[in-house]
């Protein structure tokens, strides 16, 4: 399994499957989204300051992600009730998954758990329709990485699809 300098799974690696709670009684598994691109956005915690908040930004970018038929999943170690309150307050229109029990298990699978903080890295993975990681990026934990890298990766996937 190849990783980048942060230890995050590198492009070309098959994305490890997982099933995580999106709400107290609903789960989302990666394999159920096979057939379309998935954007996996690990972030350290709910409730970061608003105007620079990565999830609030991605919420506005959703129509662009959907143009590429891509599904966006936010992932942090926060519990489902915390996610629900956060999503309601920020009016988020995409699932936030709880990597809560065992804590950070999925983040560890992807090589983006921060032992020293007990949270995930701020890390992005773009996974193609076949379930292979095609782009990944680990941002400095305090820096919102924006959406430009994700959009470029989705564009590349789209171009490849059209040339097949």
């Amino acid at each position, binding site marked *: 399994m190849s990783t980048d300098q942060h230890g995050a799974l590198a492009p070309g690696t098959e994305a490890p499957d997982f099933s995580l709670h999106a709400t107290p009684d609903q789960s989302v598994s990666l394999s159920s989204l096979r057939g379309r691109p998935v954007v996996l956005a690990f972030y350290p915690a709910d409730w970061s300051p608003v105007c620079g908040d990565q999830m*609030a930004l991605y919420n506005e970018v959703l129509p662009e992600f959907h143009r590429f038929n891509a599904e966006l999943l936010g992932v942090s170690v926060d519990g489902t009730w915390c996610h629900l309150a956060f999503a309601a307050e920020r009016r988020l229109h995409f699932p936030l998954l709880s990597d809560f029990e065992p804590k950070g298990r999925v983040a560890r699978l992807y090589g983006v758990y921060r032992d020293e903080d007990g949270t995930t890295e701020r890390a992005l993975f773009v996974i193609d329709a076949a379930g292979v990681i095609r782009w990944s990026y680990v941002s400095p934990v305090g820096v919102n990485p*924006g959406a*430009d890298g994700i959009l470029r990766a989705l564009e590349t996937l789209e171009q490849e699809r059209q040339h097949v």
Partner: protein
Amino acid sequence: MSEVERTRLTLAVSARDHIEGPNDAPVTLVEYGDYECPYCGRAYPIVKKLQHELGSQLRFVFRNFPLKEIHPHAQHAAEAAEAAAAQGRFAEMHDALFEHQRDLRDLRLSEHAAAIGLDVARFEKDLADHTYAARVREDFLSGLRSGVNGTPTFFINGLRHNGPWDFEVLLNAIRAASTTSESTSR
């Protein structure tokens, strides 16, 4: 993703933009902002002060980056500024919106329109028809592609300004860019 790709303005300043200051100014400051964002509200007088301090040395461009889910009035306010621009009064509306950013209800937008001398009926129709929604979206997308990750985000001569943006910091960054642009144009 390389640092250079991430931090460059992808949509060059052109006639589509609302420009304050001379086109041959050595430095262009582009702000991506949201009229309802309190941080942008804080940046507003800082930009004014920079314009005052630098005069014809600075060209300023404001582009829309409304986070409309967390700021329910931001989209309409952005469209209002564009509707005012269509009547030649962008700067006046821009200022009015930031100076009253805690109350951006449609009623207030119309009051600002009247106060700055717009044809209010036309302004209200443009808002109701979302005539400038596509334009606002175009700004927003250009920001996304340029690595805007929150508001306000500034670009100085096409390069994203990272970190704090208080007056002294921006002034120094602009002066540094001005020196560079002089030495390269020689």
